[in-house]
């Protein structure tokens, strides 16, 4: 992995992920589960939990990078727009810095939807086996 390397992976927040997240973490806030409530707040429907994207990030780091010996040291994410159920998302990540001395790669990333609207962005630092 070297500076400038780019990776991308596609996701869909489908019923299995949405229901699985609620089953596991019990966040049934009406913004996420009650269409009328969400619409009254100005959204098109129930807003998917932002931390579902962190699950996608976990999959991406653990399963989609060329290195399998990886460990997330830190990550930050900013949510820019809501995500709705069955929305197609693309995660695009670029290696911004690699420190060989301490075996760390810094990646910046963003999620975009099918209209290329950036719905979240952030940075993630991972330990890698260089």
């Amino acid at each position, binding site marked *: 992995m070297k500076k400038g390397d780019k990776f991308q992976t596609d996701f869909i927040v489908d019923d299995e992920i949405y229901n699985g997240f609620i089953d596991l973490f019990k966040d049934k806030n009406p913004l996420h589960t009650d269409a009328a409530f969400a619409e009254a707040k100005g959204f098109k429907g129930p807003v998917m939990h932002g931390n579902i994207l962190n699950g996608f990030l976990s999959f991406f780091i653990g399963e989609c990078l060329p290195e399998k010996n990886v460990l997330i*040291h830190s990550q930050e994410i900013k949510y820019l727009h809501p995500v709705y159920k069955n929305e197609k998302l693309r995660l695009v990540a670029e290696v911004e810095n690699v420190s060989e*001395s301490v075996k760390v790669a810094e990646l910046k990333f963003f999620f975009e939807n099918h209209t290329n609207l950036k719905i979240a962005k952030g940075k993630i630092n991972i330990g890698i086996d260089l």
Partner: protein
Amino acid sequence: MTAAEILKEVNRIFIDQLENENIVLNRASIADDIEEWDSLTHIQLIVAIEKHFKTRFTSAEIQNFKNVGEMCDALEKKILLK
């Protein structure tokens, strides 16, 4: 850049990375002296120092530093070589 100036900038990086305004480094400072300086924050510190000074350490250099002073000496040499 003098050794004292490098130490001052390294001190600022420690304060920022470890979120502790009370950190005061000297050349003899080691990880045991600073509560927040553990194996994980050590990595964050090295990455931040490399980026700040626009230089790179080798893993051998990192392992051989006995204290902050030795790291600052290495930084001073790298800056002089630029």
